């Protein structure tokens, strides 16, 4: 599973003020405080992952790194709390569990939903006159034509999700290759 950081936004990520608050890393016993806390965490996860162009996380590894660990204040989120947060993101369409069924140990972080990636790719193909041409999936995201596009060097699993959306909308046809990169795609009106 690729995890490219090719087009990461320049400049350091700006953490919200609450990130320096040690209790932010403890699941709050007060229900309404917890509601606010989980909302802030979900926003933070999506913003952080978007800024750094990260697309997936494995829970057990992720909690030892930012944003789930804040070394300055020596705090880390617990795995079970992170699992709850990912479930929240899944509910809002911004994450998807991967790996063994019900294991909930790894996921995709969809800081941009597949439908949105799909529409960006489709629009670009239209502008470049690429309809009815067969491209390899790899070429689509990594070729010269993709340079400067948001989806340039897009993580292959996320890309595949976007193309699946286009296929289900009747706007694309995927052709099986020997691997995800080999796979071909034809976009059409």
């Amino acid at each position, binding site marked *: 599973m690729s995890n490219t950081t090719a087009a990461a936004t320049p400049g350091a990520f700006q953490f919200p*003020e*609450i990130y*320096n*608050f*040690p*209790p*932010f*890393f*403890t699941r*709050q*016993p*007060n229900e*309404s*405080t917890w*509601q*606010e806390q989980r909302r802030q965490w979900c926003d933070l996860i999506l913003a952080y992952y978007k800024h750094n162009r990260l697309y997936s996380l494995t829970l057990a590894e992720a909690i030892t790194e930012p944003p789930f660990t804040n070394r300055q204040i*020596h*705090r880390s989120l617990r795995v079970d709390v992170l699992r709850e947060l990912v479930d929240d993101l899944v509910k809002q369409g911004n994450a998807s569990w991967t790996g063994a069924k019900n294991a909930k140990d790894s996921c995709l972080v969809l800081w941009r939903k597949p439908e949105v990636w799909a529409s960006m790719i489709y629009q670009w193909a239209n502008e470049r006159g690429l309809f009815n041409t067969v491209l390899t999936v790899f070429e689509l995201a990594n070729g010269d034509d993709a340079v400067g596009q948001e989806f340039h060097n897009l993580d292959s699993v996320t890309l595949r999700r976007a193309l699946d959306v286009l296929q289900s909308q009747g706007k694309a046809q995927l052709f099986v290759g020997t691997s995800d990169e080999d796979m071909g795609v034809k976009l059409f009106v």
Partner: protein
Amino acid sequence: MMKDNLEDFVREHQRDIRNNPAFRVQVQRMCQLIGVDPLSSRKSYMSELLGVGDFYCELGIQIIDICVATRSINGGLMDLDELLRRLIRRRLKGSEPVVEDDIRRAISQLKPLKGGYKIVCFGKRKMVQSVAREMNSDQAKVMTLAQYTCKFTMEDVRVAFGWDEDRIHSCVDDMLRSGIVWMDEYNEAYPEYWVMAFFSQLNSALTMANAE
């Protein structure tokens, strides 16, 4: 006679009153000495003369806005200094400067609201409370205990006040339930309880200092 002179004075210096907070405070004190309360009615002739009716109304709305937006994080309690800082940051460039005295007056105008806006003090800390809640004296004592460190453990409370376990638990539970305190379980044996409003003030002061 005095009132007429005061009215003339105010009319002449209307712009200064709006733009110079120190001057504004002095004029208001003068009004009070003479027995005129410019804020007693928004439509009052004096408040129109002073041109401050709108100013405090607008300020009141901004204060309510900030308090409501942060309530789910701080349980409706915010340090007065932090509120002032947020107001200044939020107000457009070129609008009238604001000082602590203005906040106090704006808040006194908000008293009739169900929100229960008022100023409460814990030791040296001055806080704006924006929910209708009576903090009992145990909680107030603990808040004062934590005023500098922003946090406390149950052990700290026991050592400071000698209360029994039930009384401490009950107090801490109330504070958690009201949303003014967050729990930090880093040390599972001795969890720390942080007063969000105290931390927030410290943190925002540091952030602004670093930004300058």
